[in-house]
């Protein structure tokens, strides 16, 4: 059984069909990349997987760990081990990053029937993850994402991922807005999280991130469908030729 199994997924936003029959299987231990031009439905796919409302699934099925993902609320999906690193992380004024992280971890632990973690046990764990991402400890006492720089926000997403240890991590355009140093640090953090039990879905427009996070599979999403699947070489090809050739080829074969 795959960790994630998407079958014939159709999604509408208002009157427009965004995803038009997506099929995808992701096994534990694998890193998949979803690439595609702007407006192809990459982010919609990420949001639907994370169970954002306002997306109307008109057909298809998603199994996560063998369970019906589409029947889950966002928090249930999270507690089942699905994590989304946001393209635009949200600010929560007045709530410290450390408190937020511990609340999230404990919500998940509670769901799984584990004991909640107190601050004493939690802090050392958190500090260790901070080091991995070369983040300043001061960020823990600041409000969630408030007055964080673009790079700090993205690193904070990966910090959350490291603390929550998901089964499936979806990275939505994590490279956008990062300079090359920040990109490397984020990628190192992500790579450190690679494990045989964990899968990752890296959504990106550019190939650049994939130099650092090397995927096992690359899927090209065009106009709501996965039109091509390959290995990392496909990403290089896209970088070189752009998305146009693939769109044209599609038009010919269709």
């Amino acid at each position: 059984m795959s960790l994630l199994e998407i079958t014939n997924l159709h999604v509408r936003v208002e009157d427009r069909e965004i995803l038009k029959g997506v099929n995808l299987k992701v096994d534990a231990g694998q890193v998949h990349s979803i690439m595609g031009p702007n407006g192809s439905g990459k982010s919609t796919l990420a949001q639907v997987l994370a169970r954002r409302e306002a997306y109307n699934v008109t057909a298809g099925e998603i199994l996560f760990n063998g369970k019906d993902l589409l029947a889950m609320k966002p928090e249930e999906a999270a507690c089942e081990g699905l994590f989304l690193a946001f393209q635009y992380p949200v600010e929560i004024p007045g709530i410290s990053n450390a408190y937020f992280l511990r609340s999230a971890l404990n919500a998940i632990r509670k769901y799984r029937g584990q004991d909640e973690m107190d601050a004493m046990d939690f802090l050392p764990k958190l500090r260790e993850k901070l080091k991995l991402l070369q983040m300043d400890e001061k960020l823990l006492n600041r409000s969630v994402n408030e007055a964080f720089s673009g790079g700090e926000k993205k690193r904070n997403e990966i910090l959350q991922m490291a603390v929550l240890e998901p089964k499936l991590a979806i990275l939505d355009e994590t490279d956008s807005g990062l300079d090359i140093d920040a990109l490397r640090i984020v990628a190192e953090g992500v790579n450190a999280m690679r494990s045989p039990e964990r899968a990752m879905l890296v959504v990106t427009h550019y190939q650049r991130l994939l130099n650092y996070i090397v995927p096992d599979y690359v899927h090209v999403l065009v106009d709501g469908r996965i039109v091509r699947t390959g290995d990392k070489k496909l990403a290089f090809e896209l970088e070189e030729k752009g998305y146009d050739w693939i769109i044209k080829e599609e038009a010919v074969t269709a």
Partner: protein
Amino acid sequence: MSSNTDTIRELAQQEYKWGFVTDIGEDRIPKGLNEDIIRLISTKKNEPEFMLEWRLKAFRHWLTLEQKQAEPKWANIKYGPIDYQSIAYYSAPKQKPNITSLDQIDPEILRTYEKLGIPLLEQKMLAGVAVDAVFDSVSVATTFKGKLAEVGVIFCSFSEAVQKHPDLVKKYLGSVVPYTDNFFATLNAAVFTDGSFVYVPKGVRCPMELSTYFRINAAETGQFERTLIVADEGASVSYLEGCTAPIRDENQLHAAVVELIALDDAQIKYSTVQNWYPGDKNGKGGIYNFVTKRGACRGKNSKISWTQVETGSAITWKYPSCILQGDNSVGEFYSVALTNNYQQADTGTKMIHIGKNTRSTIVAKGISAGHGQNTYRGQVKIMKDATGARNYTQCDSLLIGDQCGAHTFPYIEVKNSTAHMEHEASTSKIGEDQLFYLRQRGLKAEDAVSMIVNGFCKRVFRELPMEFAVEAQKLLSVSLEGSVG
């Protein structure tokens, strides 16, 4: 319908859990308002002549106000006319006269306060908090009086203060809020029935938190209490009030007056957690909370700090204020006001700077949900001689949903050019983005809302006494449940 909306809807059905009625014999006077009623109240309370005279003066003044239709109409609130003749102005639970110990209180009343989470038997209480319990028109119990008396702190019902400390009452009553102050304060002066009295003598730091718990029980009555707190030179005290009422379809009037007096180097911290019945989700019933609260920093270096968490009442009309007379005196106002369903709040503060180097801080957080309307109204006045005065005002509104409203009316009047004024204001909306973000991290929808709101209110909660900060957070979550769809 989305799962989010469903969860919220279920929670919205939760009832106001303080809404029960205690079945107890009442000693109640007939409805109506006239001089005989005022005399009857005074007689029932066995008051000295000066009190009756004061009441009558107030009442006669009130009649002129009523004739002039001087009931304040400038606030951003809407309600039908109040029939002041259809209210019973005194209702007290029947109990033995001359209760000397808490054991003699009607067990029904003790049970009521237990149910509200305010046990009156001292062995069961929070160790550091003394409570005065006001049930309808009278104080039914005051705890830890003996312990407080050891250090000279007087903490008792207002009625008892009139009997035992008439000189203090005479000296300070009406000295901050005169009986002519405003329509509701005048009415209160005429008919007030009880409340709390605190006097902290020179140089004494009150060793425990003092608190009053106000409970309206009887129907077709109003609650008109009066609280007077005096901190003598170098004294300090922290006081907290809480309030609840049964669920009823009719609106009930609560018109209270609070006067604080801080002499040289004295400090008073006054915290309110107001949770009167807010009415049902269609706006039926609920308390009209029309309250006048004012503190006078009379002495140099004195400080008065108001913190309020206003989650209840159908309508809230109150402006806890500070008159900064003493040089270097400090006034503070920290407020969280929440309106859900059809609640209305018009609340804020006045800071009147008279003395030199006086400082004031205002932090007001308004949260509107459902069809709630929330207004901040503030006045900062720097008088001619108030050289070196400073004010900092921060005024934030949070909107939940698209049916509610937030309004801000800050007035600033400066007559001294050395004044330093800062004003910050913001309005934001709990976004679907914030909610989704928190839920994606595993938090349930209702926990996500309460986390966002608590973050928004953090600056104010920090000012509450520890034991109550936690309560206030919970209360806010409960009051908000059902507000996000």
